[in-house]
């Protein structure tokens, strides 16, 4: 059983890795065969070389972007959870405020980012605010849903045992909400990165900031396409990294009991 589980894991790593290698190989060979100019589509080896030579600046830019994304993500989690708790306290509060949360969600961040950058002096703070606005909605909606999705039988059980409001919250509502909350975390972590990058694009055209998005813009102006790809690669890696951390957190917390995680490690 264990051996089989291990080989399953191996397959789920090896199979996509093989696909990736095949694609890269095809890309490399196709570029060479048709001698595609580097300023149109660089070969993977060109990009790798760029990563090696430019890594100090690129890594610095990555750090900048990640910092904004992580700050925004933490802010979104804290604020989003608080708002969800507020919503669950009364239907009236939820009914009066939820439409505005939706409003915030459906307004494209690209459209409000310039405003935020004008209103907020500090670039870091402005970028963080942009990313927070994008990342907060899944936290609010998922956590609210989770706090409400409690087994009615368990609610009756708690009532029969005369549980107080706080006891019901801590022992019943919060644990019930955890799977939904972690679902929200996964979506939100990706969105925080998107928000940070979008914000940087807007701020970058204004001539401020030094994140990965700014690197992409600059490389574009200089027709340094391999560098563009290198920056893009780093953004993707950062996104995957965030996602993996979220999955790990979720597995750590829910692994023992929740269906979503039990299926995952079989």
């Amino acid at each position: 059983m264990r051996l089989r589980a291990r080989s399953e894991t191996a397959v789920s790593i090896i199979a996509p890795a093989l696909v990736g290698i095949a694609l890269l190989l095809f890309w490399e060979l196709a570029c060479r065969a048709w001698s595609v100019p580097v300023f149109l589509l660089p070969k993977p080896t060109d990009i790798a070389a760029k990563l090696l030579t430019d890594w100090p600046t690129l890594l610095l830019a990555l750090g900048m972007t990640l910092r904004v994304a992580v700050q925004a993500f933490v802010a979104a989690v804290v604020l989003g959870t608080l708002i969800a708790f507020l919503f669950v306290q009364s239907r009236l509060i939820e009914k009066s405020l939820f439409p505005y949360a939706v409003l915030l969600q459906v307004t494209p961040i690209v459209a409000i980012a310039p405003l935020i950058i004008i209103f907020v002096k500090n670039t870091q703070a402005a970028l963080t605010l942009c990313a927070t606005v994008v990342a907060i909605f899944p936290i609010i909606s998922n956590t609210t849903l989770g706090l409400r999705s409690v087994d009615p039988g368990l609610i009756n059980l708690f009532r029969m045992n005369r549980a107080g409001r706080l006891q019901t919250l801590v022992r019943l509502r919060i644990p019930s909400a955890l799977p939904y909350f972690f679902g929200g975390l996964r979506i939100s972590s990706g969105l925080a990165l998107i928000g940070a990058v979008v914000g940087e694009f807007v701020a970058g055209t204004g001539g401020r900031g030094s994140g990965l998005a700014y690197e992409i813009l600059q490389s574009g102006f200089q027709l340094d396409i391999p560098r563009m790809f290198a920056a893009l690669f780093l953004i993707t890696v950062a996104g995957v990294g965030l996602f993996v951390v979220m999955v790990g957190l979720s597995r750590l917390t829910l692994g023992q009991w929740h269906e979503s995680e039990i299926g995952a490690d079989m």
Partner: protein
Amino acid sequence: MTSPSEATVLALPEPRPPVAVAAPAVEVLSAEKIFPDGTRALAPISLAIDQGEFVTLIGPSGCGKSTLLNLMSNLLEPSDGRLLWWRAGYGDVVSRGRQVAFVFQDPTLMPWARLAANVRLPLDLAGVPRAAANARVTAALARVGLGDFAHHYPRQLSGGMKMRASIARSLVIDPDLLLMDEPFGALDEFTRNRLDDELVKLCFERKLTTVFVTHSIYEAVFLSSRIIVMAGAPGRIFATLAIDEVQPRPESFRNSARFAEYCRTLSSLLARASGA
């Protein structure tokens, strides 16, 4: 001992003479339940359940047996009439330390908590110190034969084991009144019979007052000292059948001619209750 054919069959309404020495555990005094959507779940019902009785509510679907049980658990309030527990209101009785336990149709265990924590929940909510609570949890789990599973999660257990855990959770507070809403309805017949055997012993040992809802004629006859047959829409008491047999019932009771006779009587009563 009366023979089953002479079993007391009373038509509604049933005025129980107040002969009980102790206060009845529950009295339903012309309680009626109409839900907010206008459904009349229960016509005014009067009923008393004495200390130490095992009373089963049986009847066609929608006859209000669960509603009646929910009234007795105070999870629902009657639209009219009232209920008394040991001749007092629910709040008074509970604050004087009387315990009412409810076993639901589903095991309703918290999936995130190990079995021991699940069973300990009522004690945790009541603020019982951890050490004392743990001792009672261990005893309750051992009593239902789950002593070795204290550290398992509910998902690791079979349906029958989960139901036992749910029963252990109701026993851990040492209830004075045990209300059970079709607890074994989802289990296979074999498991159900085994759990019934255990339940009979438990209730006898502890002199528990139990109100039990079921759809199973065999289960009702095997467990009960008194069976209340209900009829539907709106819910009312159709007939009462006393099962005057020794307690605790031996497993062999199921194979006796008297058992078959009780089942036949109950079955025809149910048929009339459904047809009426």
